[in-house]
């Protein structure tokens, strides 16, 4: 388990927003490793794990985006049946609750990382 930085970009739920956002990544030569898009009515939040998070934060701020960066948990899962279940089981046993989760497949495809927010960060850090 490790902590990694996640970028959350706020956007109105309109066509073209994703194009605009991915352009900033491209122009700044930043690679997207994982992402998640969640919409809630008129708005949405796009979450990204990038290879150069601080650079991305600056670039998006400069481009006028509403962006925030926070630390999330990256929990190793085996890339085979049961891999996710094992992790989920462990988290449940520890009494922790996952908010917002998505996956990052590592380059060598030996494993996958469960990227998630856990509300009770202190407890999570201790348990995991």
């Amino acid at each position, binding site marked *: 388990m490790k902590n990694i930085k*996640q970028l*959350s970009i*706020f*956007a*109105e739920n309109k066509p073209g927003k994703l194009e605009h956002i991915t352009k900033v990544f491209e122009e700044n030569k930043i690679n997207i490793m994982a992402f998640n898009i969640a919409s*809630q009515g*008129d*708005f949405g*939040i796009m*979450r990204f794990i990038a290879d150069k998070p601080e650079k991305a934060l600056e670039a998006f701020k400069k481009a*006028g985006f*509403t*962006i*925030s*960066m*926070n630390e999330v948990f990256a929990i190793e899962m085996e890339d085979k049946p049961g891999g996710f279940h094992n992790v989920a089981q462990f988290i449940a046993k520890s009494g922790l609750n996952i908010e917002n989760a998505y996956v990052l497949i590592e380059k060598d495809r030996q494993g996958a990382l469960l990227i998630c927010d856990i509300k009770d960060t202190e407890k999570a850090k201790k348990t995991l």
Partner: protein
Amino acid sequence: MFWQMEQETLKRAKLEALQLKRLKQTLKRVYDNVPFYQKAFTKCKVKPVSLKSVKDIEKFPFTTREDLQANYPDGLLACGREDIVRLHTSSGTTGKPKAVFFTKADLDNSANLIARCLVATGCTKHDVLQNMMSYGLFTGGLVMHYGAEKLGMLIIPSAVGNTDRQIMLMQDFGTTTLHLTPSYALYLASHFEAKGINPAKDLKLKRAFMGAEPYTEETRLKLESSMGIEVFNSYGLTEMNGPGVAFECTEKNGMHIWEDNFIVEIVDPATGKQLPDGEYGELVLTTINREGMPIIRYRTRDITAIDPVRCACGRTHVRIKRIHGRADDMFIIRGVNIYPQQIEQVLMGVNGVGKNYQIVLESSEDMTIRVEFSKGYFDGNLDNLKTLRGTLVEKLKAAILVRPKVELAEPGTLPVSEGKSKRVIDNRKVY
């Protein structure tokens, strides 16, 4: 038919002489009893005796809504508190509303003015009035009520809302006359349709008086045809008693203002200079028959024009045209007066709100406030944005008395024109 025929048809020369006499008395009354007016007159280098003709009123200072608010609660009283029997306040302001006081004589006089209006539209004591206006601090309810009572009509004080019950009352008690806002009238009309009631055939309705909000001639005609009744335009403001300041007669071509009670001026809103009859400008009113709280040259901020042509009804008191707009940015939603500044004050006091906002007026009933949240407020989740929106709705409702829709916008996305943000988008089509 006239309620007070002699006064309503007084020849112009006599009417103007009466105005001069009452205006002189009023100026003296406020000068002697109201420190605010004494100071204001002195600043303009005038005394009551400076008035030699009604036109000389131009030499005297204006009174604004800010003056009323600054002199709250009773700084403009021209008599002792023990002589005052009624208080009304103007809707929609936070903290310091405009308070208007009435003596028994003032109330009786106001009731007579209303009775004049009612008779001018054809009402008699055999008519039944359903007063569908708010009863309370708002003048629309009580002031109309006492006027109708003076005439001898049967009044059903049904106030606002509960439309099914309103219709039941009309059916059971034979209501002939309605007093309500144009937006409630539109709602009522569609309610009749939904229930399959044809007011012209199934009810005894003959007429409706509509006021307290601006509306167009088109809306009047639409309501007349939809309900099969006559609709009369009514103008008033709390500072000038409430309803009954100006009203249409059966000619329905402009509203008569009772000139033996009010001096009517139309001024250029930017310069304050008097404009000739027929030109549109800001309506300025002076009470000349009130003893509790006379008001001199009140800037109503309503835009209209005087129609000097003698009306076929025989009344010699001048008419004003349908209100054409505002000289300030006040608007009315669900019957409540709202100023954009009130909204701004609330918004800027809430943590998380950004620089830019927009007020979108959809109709007389609906308003949406778009607010940018501040960049730093976004923490990666939508939760605190939801909370922010909820907080804004509640705080706005508390301040302006109407619950608006609030939409949050991303910082920097609300349109800005010529460096200055366009704050109010008016889609109402009420002028």
